[in-house]
């Protein structure tokens, strides 16, 4: 009985299946055609999503580059004002000594002020006078002094001289201050704009290439501030980083790849390297602050401390890249060297390392480029100090390019916006150069075994 029932069930099931099989899909039916159309539309949509994702990313890159470039290119030029300076002997060298020490102490600021007042004789009010003096930068008197020291014959003459202008005036000339808005809500009042127009109509306002931006250190005055101090600081910091992280990184990579036995020590080292690569950079800053400054009492704000901190951060990058490069050297090279009687150390130093060197160098350059762009850990160890002097060594207080960018970005003066963007362009130029070098090395020396 049960057999019978199960047989009937089987038959019924078989009939269902045969019904399905016997009714073939009509691939030309409108339903299927619609379905296929829908699926193809989904396919196209999906592709468009992908393409637009890449578009969004590239757009972001473009907007970033454009906003930096358009804000910053004007910083490479600086407004100069031409004034008729009377090199009054009574003011510079009253006794006619010709002694450079006397000339150096003269009040050149006064000469500029007199020249300004001579150009605009109707300015008498004290506040107006102060505004008028703002047309020329406070640093112009130093330029004037240098000029006279170089050429003492100027004393007694009256010459038309181009002087570096103040930052607000520079902003006006570059079009960042709109003369049409309400007087109260702009940095310059109507009188100042009137002086500007008068000077322009004299042909006494000109934009010149701003070489000072590349040669001077930081300053509170935007028109006098330059990136050279920060660039030198970056150089010393990277030098320390390179001298520490390159040998240590390569030796560690050689050990892990060629000599290390598979034991607990090696495993711990590998786990640590992977974790260090992912530790937030600011934590390295805390480490530097605690260990280098509080425990070892190394000098604050010094590139050597920055270099030590960045070296720890760069180490994982160099080790990982070096290991990959060493691994890529085929075992046959090692076997050949060992077969000829070389010791394992000789095999590595004479054969494996030279062959792996292009890869190691590429990784090192990329690590250095990362270190060059790093800011946060350096804030922790005091490299944010306001430093005017160009550092003369790795122990002098210094700042670095990215920190300089951060400091300028925080400054309230409008003129620092373009300086910041320009400094970013310089930093990016260095980064592109380094990464380009890495790509070149890889292309030139890459070997397929």
């Amino acid at each position, binding site marked *: 009985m049960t057999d019978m029932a199960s047989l009937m069930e089987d038959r019924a099931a078989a009939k269902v299946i045969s019904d399905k099989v016997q009714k073939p899909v009509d691939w030309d039916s409108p339903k299927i055609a619609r379905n296929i159309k829908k699926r193809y539309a989904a396919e196209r949509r999906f592709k468009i999503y992908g393409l637009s994702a890449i578009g969004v990313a590239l757009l972001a890159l473009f907007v970033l580059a454009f906003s930096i470039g358009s804000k910053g290119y004007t910083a490479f030029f600086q407004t100069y004002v031409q004034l008729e300076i009377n090199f009054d002997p009574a003011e510079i060298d009253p006794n006619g000594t010709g002694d450079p020490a006397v000339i150096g102490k003269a009040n050149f600021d006064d000469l500029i002020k007199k020249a300004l007042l001579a150009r605009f004789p109707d300015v008498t009010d004290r506040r107006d006078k102060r505004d008028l003096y703002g047309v020329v930068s406070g640093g112009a008197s130093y330029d004037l002094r240098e000029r006279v020291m170089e050429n003492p014959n100027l004393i007694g003459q009256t010459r038309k001289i181009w002087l570096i202008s103040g930052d607000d005036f520079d902003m006006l000339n570059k079009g960042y201050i709109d003369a049409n808005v309400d007087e109260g809500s702009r940095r310059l009042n109507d009188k100042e704009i009137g002086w500007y127009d008068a000077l322009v109509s004299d042909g006494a306002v000109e934009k010149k290439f701003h070489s000072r931006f590349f040669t001077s250190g930081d300053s509170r005055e935007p028109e006098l501030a330059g990136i050279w101090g920060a660039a030198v600081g970056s150089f010393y910091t990277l030098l320390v980083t390179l001298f520490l992280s390159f040998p240590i990184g390569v030796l560690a990579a050689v050990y892990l790849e060629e000599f290390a036995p598979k034991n607990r020590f090696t495993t711990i080292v590998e786990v640590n390297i992977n974790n260090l690569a992912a530790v937030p950079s600011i934590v390295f800053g*805390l480490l530097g602050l605690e260990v280098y400054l509080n425990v070892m009492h190394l000098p604050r704000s010094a590139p050597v401390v920055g270099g030590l901190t960045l070296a720890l951060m760069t180490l994982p990058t160099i080790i990982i890249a070096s290991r990959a490069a060493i691994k890529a050297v085929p075992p046959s090279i090692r076997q050949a060297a060992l077969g000829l009687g070389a010791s394992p150390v000789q095999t590595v130093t004479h054969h494996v390392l030279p062959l792996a060197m292009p890869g190691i160098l590429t990784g090192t350059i990329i690590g250095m480029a990362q270190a060059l762009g790093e800011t946060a850990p350096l804030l922790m160890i005091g490299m944010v100090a306001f430093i005017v002097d160009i550092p003369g060594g790795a122990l002098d207080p210094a700042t670095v390019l990215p920190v300089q960018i951060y400091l300028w970005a925080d400054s309230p003066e409008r003129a620092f916006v373009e300086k910041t963007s320009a400094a970013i362009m310089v930093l990016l130029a260095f980064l592109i150069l380094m990464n380009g070098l890495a790509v070149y090395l890889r292309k030139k020396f890459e070997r397929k075994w």
Partner: protein
Amino acid sequence: MSLSFLLLAVAALCALSFYFGRQRAVALSGGRYSNLHSLPAHYGTYVALWCGLPALLLLLVWHSLQGSIIQAMIISELPAEITGDAGQLSLALNSISLIAAGNGQHLNVVPEVIDAGQRLANLQTIANAAMIVVMLSGSVLGVSLSYRKISAELRARNNVERIFRWMMIACSAIAILSTVGIVFSLLFEALHFFSKISPVEFLFGLEWSPQTAIRADQVASEGAFGAIPLFVGTLLITIIAMCVAVPVGLFSAIYMGEYASPKFRAVAKPALEILAGVPTVVYGFFAALTVAPFLRNNGAVLGLDVSSESALAAGLVMGVMIIPFVSSLSDDVMSQVPKSLRDGSYGLGATKSETIRHVIFPAALPGIVGAVLLAVSRAIGETMIVVMAAGLAANMTVNPLQAVTTVTVQIVTLLVGDQEFDSAKTLSAFALGLVLFLVTLGLNVFALKVVQKYREKYD
């Protein structure tokens, strides 16, 4: 004598000892190198290592101890009324180091401090001179011992290689040392902090205002150290960043891997990678000066009140920064899905997008989750963008248009400028750092485990 000059001198001494060691080996060989155990260069290296290593080790030890020892000597001779108070002591120490550096003329301090400053300058000169003497005598001792040991039977190569091997092990150990250094320096100061503020208050408190009074007569708030607002702010910005980075990164990885022609790939892939190479301070500037005003102005048009330090601006830009990270990691993961799965799906008539959505993506999901977790950990630890574009005030809000602050912002603001290592304000930065370190470490370990397990599945 400056440090770099000293190092150069040591290097020159090493070169000299190499030369003499080698010469001696050559002389001993009598013209036939096979009389020697090792090559002449090994003998040279042997002597050079014995010249350089003692000097460098002594330099390292000396430099790491000199500061603390001299400071202890100076403090021990200061009068008790200065050493008794921690604030006064640090002030006095500052003036002393200024005087020692010759910049203290304008300082108005007690004569004891001026004396101490001069003593410090003296001690530093003596210490530097003594260090040079110790270093050089270490070198000379090493050279004379090793030079005398040179003989035809000396196993110079084995000796050199043993030293080389130990140097390599020491270099590898630095990775461990720096982790240990991080943990200990964070833990030490954080425990210091928790002895003043209870951990429960720190981890679960709802108010954060660390500005405590520095002097007793100053008017300032009591100081509250509840870190929940910071965690909320960090989370909010991270979520916004992920909302940008995950879809964009994932879809660009899919397009690059599955659809793009090799030519398109060759251009677009490096272009995306540029985004990862831009320094974070540049993103910060971009967020603060371009994106934030843009959002603010457009928000005003729509009638929204967008803060000029909105979480949205910082989060969006951070998302852009992380796009290449997500895209390259998920590209890796998806390219590891075996070809057989793909072929099976195509064989059943699935379109490319159906294959990706129903076969490749589910298969790669654990790896993608790992990649996203790594990206989250990076977003949490990111500093410069939020320092420049996010706010300072600890608002408890999840409104992306308002200003929030993050853990990293607070660490920077607490530690930039004057620091006193006995106030809860400064120490709280280390407690925050510890939390940050533990959270990112946990995320990374977990994410790497997930990715690894996924790799094993398809290997």
